C-alpha cells in the first residue's frame, strides 16, 4: 500500500514579538492508505499546528510534506485551496455548518467550489453522502432542527462529498456526550473499514484513540510515541455495552 501522506523533519516556528516559538521541532511520520490514525497530545504539544499543516491551511517552516504525492511546500495560496477542495475532508469540533441552510445544501458546499459539477450531479452526490451517514431522511432539515450528533454527521457527509483521499477530524467528538461520541466513532470505523477511507483524527481523549489503528503521540513539538494499535476496540460494541440513557425517563 502506498503512502497517502509523508512528513519528513517537519518544523514550524512562529515569531511572536522578538521571540521565536518552536511549535514543531522536527516531526516525521507517514500514513498509509486505509489507515485510521489518531494524533494525540495535551495542549501545547503542537497538535493544532500539526493539524493546520496536515490540512494545508498552514505551511511548515522547513521539512517536507507530501500529500498524495504532491509537495505542499511549492504551492501558493490558491493552489492550496484547490488541494484542500480535492483531497481533504475536514470535520471540526464545532461542526461549522451554515445556519439556516438545509443539510443537503451544507453537504453540497465543497462541490460549489469545484468547476464542472452540474446542479443535478451535486444534488445526487450530496444525497449519497447523506445516505452514508444515515441522514438521507433529514436532508431538508436546518442545523437548528438537528441534534449535535446529527449535525456532526452532516459535517462528516460534507467531508465525504468531494471524495477526498483523507478525512481530517479535529476533536470531532469534543462537543458530544459519550453515547453520541461512540456513535460518531462507529461511523468513522465503518467509513475506514467498509469504505477504505483514510482517517486522521486529532484528539486528546485516550478512549477515542483506542478505536483507531495507530496512535501518534506528540509532546513539546516532537513525536513521543508512534504505536500501531494491536487490539482495535469496536465502537459498535462499546456503544451497545453502554447503559441505556437514564437522562430522562420515557413513561
Amino acid at each position, binding site marked *: 500500500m502506498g503512502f497517502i501522506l509523508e512528513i519528513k523533519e517537519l518544523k514550524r516556528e512562529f515569531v511572536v514579538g522578538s521571540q521565536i516559538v518552536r511549535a514543531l521541532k522536527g516531526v516525521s511520520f507517514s500514513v498509509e492508505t486505509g489507515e485510521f490514525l489518531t494524533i494525540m497530545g495535551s495542549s501545547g504539544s503542537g497538535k493544532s499546528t500539526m493539524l493546520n499543516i496536515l490540512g494545508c491551511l498552514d505551511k511548515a517552516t522547513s521539512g517536507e510534506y507530501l500529500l498524495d504525492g504532491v509537495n505542499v511546500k511549492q504551492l501558493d495560496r490558491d493552489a492550496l485551496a484547490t488541494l484542500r477542495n480535492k483531497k481533504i475532508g475536514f470535520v471540526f469540533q464545532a461542526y*461549522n455548518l451554515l445556519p439556516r441552510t438545509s443539510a443537503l445544501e451544507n453537504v453540497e458546499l465543497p462541490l460549489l467550489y469545484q468547476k464542472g459539477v452540474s446542479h443535478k450531479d451535486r444534488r445526487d452526490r450530496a444525497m449519497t453522502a447523506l445516505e452514508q451517514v444515515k441522514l438521507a431522511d433529514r436532508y431538508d432539515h436546518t442545523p437548528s432542527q438537528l441534534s449535535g450528533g446529527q449535525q456532526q454527521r452532516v459535517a462528516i457527509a460534507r467531508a465525504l462529498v468531494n471524495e477526498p483521499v483523507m478525512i481530517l477530524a479535529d476533536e470531532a467528538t469534543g462537543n458530544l456526550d459519550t453515547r453520541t461520541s461512540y456513535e460518531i466513532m462507529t461511523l468513522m470505523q465503518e467509513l475506514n473499514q467498509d469504505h477504505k477511507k483514510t482517517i486522521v483524527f486529532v484528539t486528546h481523549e485516550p478512549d477515542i484513540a483506542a478505536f483507531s489503528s495507530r496512535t501518534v503521540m506528540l509532546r513539546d513539538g516532537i513525536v513521543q510515541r508512534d504505536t500501531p494499535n494491536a487490539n482495535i476496540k469496536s465502537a459498535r460494541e462499546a456503544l451497545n455495552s453502554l447503559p441505556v440513557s437514564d437522562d430522562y425517563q420515557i413513561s
Partner: protein
Amino acid sequence: MIIKLVKMSVINLLRIALKALQRNKLRAFLTMLGIIIGVASVITMMSIGEGSKQSITATFSNMGANMITVMPYNNMPMPGGVRLGAASVQTLTLSDVTKVKENVHNISAVSPGVSSSGQAIKGANNWPTSMQGVSPDYLFIRKLSIAKGTNFTDEQIRESAKVCVIGQTVVDNLFTNGVNPVGQIIRFGKIPFQVIGVLAPKGQNTFGQDQDDILLAPYTTVMKRVLATIYLQNIYASAVSENASSGATDEIIQTIRDNHHLRAGVENDFDVRTQADLIQTIGSTSSMMTTLLTAVAGISLVIGGIGIMNIMYVSVTERTREIGLRMSIGARGKDIMWQFLTEAVMISITGGLIGVTLGITASLTISNLLSWPTIISESSIIISFLVCALTGVFFGYYPAVKASQLDPIEALRYE
C-alpha cells in the same frame, strides 16, 4: 468548454450569494431601503423637472413660439436722472411698423400694440381688464382663434371703428344671462364698442395667467379714441419659423435703428425679445432646480451605498467562521471576494429595481393627484440604475477584499 466552465462558476456564485442573502432577508431589505429611496427620488425629481420644462415650452409655443416683441427702451436718464419704465418711453411709432413690414424678410406677420386698462361695462355688470389695440394679424401672431363672430378687418382699422373681439373671461363676467355677445354693445370706459367676435378659450398658462381675460380692438381706435397718442407700446412680429427668429430679430433691430436715425455706437432706444430667449431663460431656471433636486436625491443614493458598505463590513465580521469554513473546504480568496461583492451588487441591483418601480409609481401618482406634469425619461431610469449598480461594486469592494484576505486558521477559531 471554457465558456461553459465560466458560466457554471458564475451561476454558482449567484447561487451562493442568493442563499446568503436569503438567510437574512430583513437585513437585506433594510440595507436595500437606502438605495430604494435614493433611486426612487432621483427618478421622481427628474420626471417632475422634465415635465415642468416641457410644459413651460408648450406654454410658450402656445403663445406663439416664433413671436418677436419690440418694446421701447431707454437707458439714458431723463434730465434730473429719473429713468422711466418701458410704457412711458415713447420711441416706437407706426412708421417703424411700416418699415419693418417693408424691409424685414423671414417674418409672416406684424402688428402694432397699444394697451389701455380700464373697466369694461355691460348693463349692471363690469369687469376690470385692459384693451389691446392691435391689427388683425395679432390673432395669427399669438395663435388665437375666433370661436364666434368675426375678427375686425383692415377697413375697420382705417375707420377707427368702435368694434372689439373679447375673450371668454370677459364674456363670462359681462354676459351673465347667457346672451350671445356677438352684436351686443359694451362700454370701455365711456366709449361704446360693438362686440363682433369671441375668442376660443385657452385657459390658464403654466404661470397661472388667465389667457382668456382679453379685449382686442383696432389699434387705430385705441390710439385715437382711447389713448390719444401717436406712440406704440409694442410691435409684435412673427418669424416664419423658430430658426428664422434670430435672423429676423437682427433685421428688425437694423430697420428700426435706421428709421430712428441712430448712428453707429449709439445705444438702441428700443428692445427686441424673442419667445425663444424667454423659453431659454425660464428653461434654465427650471433645469437648475431639477439639477439641485436631483443632486439632493443623488446624495441619498450615496448614503444608501454607505449603508451597504456598513452592513457588508458587519456581515464579514459576523460571518468570519463561515469564511474560514468555506476556505477550509476549498474556496480561494477570490471566490470569497466574488461572493461578498456579488452579495453587495445583488442588494444594490434589487434595491435599484424596486426603486425604479417606486419612482415610476410616485411620478404617476404625483401627476394624477396633484396634476403636475411629469415625464419619466428613459435616461433617468438607465442612469440611476447604472449608478446604483456601481454603488454596489464601489461600496462592496472593500469589505469583500477584507473577507478574502482573512487567514483561514484564525477565521475558523474566531468567536
